[in-house]
């Protein structure tokens, strides 16, 4: 019927880029399972998948009571030693039975929630993508948030981050399509200062690649949001130009080198990134911001040179 998920992204609570051995320990959330990692084009490590059992109402735009039973898959990841993410998702399918089955049934289908009763995919998708969800319905954000909390509370972190910043939440819904020749497409909107909603239509065979794509989008959206917030507080705050530039330092040290759109995303869903690059245009805004920071630094250097020669 549909796949939905939520990704929470935040700054890892450590003063420096977290070394590999510590990363592996921080992400070791399940005993006996391996932490996977890759080094190119950027250090990236991901925890084993965790399962959370759920039996609750699913959000529905119509307000209809739809019961969902099954499991949500969640995982945590660390990118570039600085950015931590908690991500949870589930596939919703129609239940063949009209009642809850034994848990062994659901445990053989990890990451699948079976909707009991009359359920329409579009209704749930709209309910999930809405800005507010009624109390008592499935809260994927709570599962993702808790997964991220598990990383952030690790005692391997020194808890002296270079700056303080908000987490952002990316909620995403994928409706599969069976129409031949259709490319993956998506719409992105900023619902609140911290919540983003992504609605996607993807050919059925490529739905599996979507989780990586959404985590990648969430990462870049967080980078952009955080850079803009840092620039606003640094450049509009009081002080001389040198002081304002000094306040931008943590951004230069930790964020600027992490921008690498779609680096780990399956080719089949690349069109989504490309369409989001056209509108709203993440990279365009990122590059404009980075060049603004560099211009400020150049002006600061010029001022220093002038004062030295004067």
């Amino acid at each position, binding site marked *: 019927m549909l796949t939905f998920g939520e990704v929470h992204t*935040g700054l890892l609570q450590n003063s420096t880029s977290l070394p590999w051995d510590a990363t592996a320990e921080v992400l070791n959330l399940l005993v006996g399972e391996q932490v996977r990692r890759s080094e190119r084009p950027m250090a990236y490590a991901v925890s084993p998948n965790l399962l959370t059992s759920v039996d609750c109402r699913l959000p529905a735009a119509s307000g209809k009571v739809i019961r969902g039973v099954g499991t949500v898959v969640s995982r945590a990841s660390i990118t570039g030693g600085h950015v931590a993410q908690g991500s949870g998702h589930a596939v919703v399918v129609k239940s063949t039975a009209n009642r809850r089955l034994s848990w062994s049934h659901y445990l053989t289908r990890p990451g699948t929630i079976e909707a009991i009763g009359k359920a329409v995919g579009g209704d749930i998708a709209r309910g999930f993508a809405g800005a507010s969800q009624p109390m008592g319905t499935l809260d994927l954000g709570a599962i993702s948030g808790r997964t991220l*909390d598990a990383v952030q509370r690790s*005692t391997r972190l020194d*808890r002296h981050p270079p700056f*303080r910043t908000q987490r952002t939440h990316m909620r995403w819904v994928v409706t599969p399509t069976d129409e031949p020749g259709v490319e993956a497409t998506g719409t992105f909107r900023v619902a609140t200062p911290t919540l983003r909603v992504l609605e996607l239509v993807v050919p059925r065979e490529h739905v599996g690649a979507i989780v990586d794509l959404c985590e990648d989008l969430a990462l870049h959206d967080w980078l952009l949001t955080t850079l803009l917030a840092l620039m606003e507080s640094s450049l509009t705050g009081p002080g001389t130009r040198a002081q304002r530039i000094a306040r931008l330092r943590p951004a230069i040290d930790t964020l600027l080198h992490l921008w690498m759109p779609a680096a780990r995303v399956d080719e089949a869903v690349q069109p989504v990134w490309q369409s989001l690059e056209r509108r709203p245009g993440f990279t365009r805004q990122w590059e404009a911001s980075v060049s603004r920071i560099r211009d400020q630094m150049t002006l600061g250097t010029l001022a220093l040179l002038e004062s030295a020669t004067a």
Partner: protein
Amino acid sequence: MLIFATSDKGGTGRSVTSSNILYRSALQGSDVCYLDFDFGSPTSGAIFNIPTTLHGTTQGGLHSYLHGMVADPQRLEIWQESDRSSLRSRPPGAGRLVLLPGDSGGGEFPITKENTERCARLFLHLEEEFDLCLVDLSAGRSYATEMVLAATANEALRNIRTRWLVFHRWTRQHVLAASGLVYGERGILHTGENHGHDREELANSLRFVRTAVVNPDSPELEGLRPAQIAWLRDVDRDLSELASSRKVGRTLLLGSIPLDPVLQWREQLISDNDVWSRRIANRETLEQFDSLAKKIVDDAAWETL
């Protein structure tokens, strides 16, 4: 950084003073949040002039969160939600000012492993975002105090800087009560030690703030008779002696808030406007708030003596 505000008894002006300190801190450019842990009487909405939350919230506040009813407690951005004009827009250069209200109709509740764990998780989460989190506790020995002592003893919170402010009025009974709250049986140090804190470390992270203090040398007391002034001086000296014998003296004093009519008659934030244009509040009060906002984050003011 986490700041816990507590007081020996009710009515010391703990909430209004700590709100004002936090407000000055936001104006100085820090991102700050205020957590209303006074579960019996959540009043912070009134101090920040949030019309929907005057006596706590119904939208899933801190009670609901600690009881596991909601995944995250409600947050109110003061610069957007307050209906007081001087708080309505964020002044240039100011940081974020966020209120986490208590639930209306809530009450004290005993601590459990679960709510202590949720409390620790909340502190860790807020610490990611804010330079300063001020937790306003109930007066006296309370479950809220015990819960935060248990939560901050958690290993994951070990590296987070934590400070305690104990507010008390400048009278004999209040000095004795403040001393009892900190050093006495089932006091803060005793309870902290039981939950795994180092007694000395905890004592070093604790300072006193005197509220509604009448200064015998203040020009405003010129109307008093000489006998009254002389008596005031005597009392002040006796109190100072009592305070130092009870370890509530000058060495552990972070600040004194003078008696101010605006704070006495209405708990509210004192804005620059109240002092400079409307002239209803005293300049000294504002200066004390400003200085306290700087001192709570200034390591020099917290050096071990």
